[in-house]
């Protein structure tokens, strides 16, 4: 079955990022397809590559990047939510005249249309948030 996942909560805020990740992992292990994971609202904080959790803690942000690499999962960050919260890729940083970017590997920044498309294309939309 084809799944779309929506994450509305930041990494380390409560448990939504963890739940979403565990759900995605279990779905992939069962042979399901993850069409897209869309990060909205504070969920965009999942996409910062500058997050440095203690070494004995799980690295939520890196875990998503590794998942994208291993399973070719499409990780999409809402552009308006991201810009408000200081999540930028290299092109956006340049366009906005900023001196740095921080989008983690495996993520891409795009618009809300990507969430609508995912909800149409996928057979199930599973929402994780606060």
């Amino acid at each position, binding site marked *: *079955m084809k*799944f779309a996942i929506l994450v*509305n909560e930041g990494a380390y805020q*409560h*448990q*939504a990022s963890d*739940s979403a990740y*565990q*759900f995605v*992992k*279990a*779905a992939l*292990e*069962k042979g*399901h397809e993850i069409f897209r994971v869309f990060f909205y609202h504070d969920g965009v904080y999942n996409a910062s590559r500058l997050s440095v959790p203690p070494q004995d803690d799980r690295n939520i942000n890196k875990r998503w990047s590794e998942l994208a690499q291993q399973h070719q999962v499409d990780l999409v960050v809402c552009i308006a939510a991201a810009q408000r919260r200081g999540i930028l890729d290299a092109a956006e940083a340049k366009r906005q005249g900023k001196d740095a970017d921080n989008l983690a590997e495996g993520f891409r920044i795009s618009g809300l249309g990507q969430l609508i498309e995912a909800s149409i294309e996928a*057979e*199930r*939309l*599973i*929402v*994780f*948030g*606060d």
Partner: protein
Amino acid sequence: MNTLHTVNKSPFERNSLSSCLRLAAAESSILLFEDGIYAALQGTEFSETIQTALATHSIYVLVPDLQARGMSLEQVIAGVQAVDYAGFVDLTTTHYPIQAWL
């Protein structure tokens, strides 16, 4: 296909489970996960509400979230069914739509 309602907050913190139970159609299912697992426990102010709801709904609890909070299946209300993440995925394939009560 019946709806699966997902509830992730304790009924002692938010009213999302109460709202869910008030509006959920008979025969729809409810998954308690994250802090929502506290609703599945015996001997709380909310236990009777869950016991009543079991007459019209299948209710599931996510065991990893139960255990992460120091709780065990022995403390769960009889009739509430245990699932792991694989079981969570299965519930989403056998129900439609999936309604998150955030």
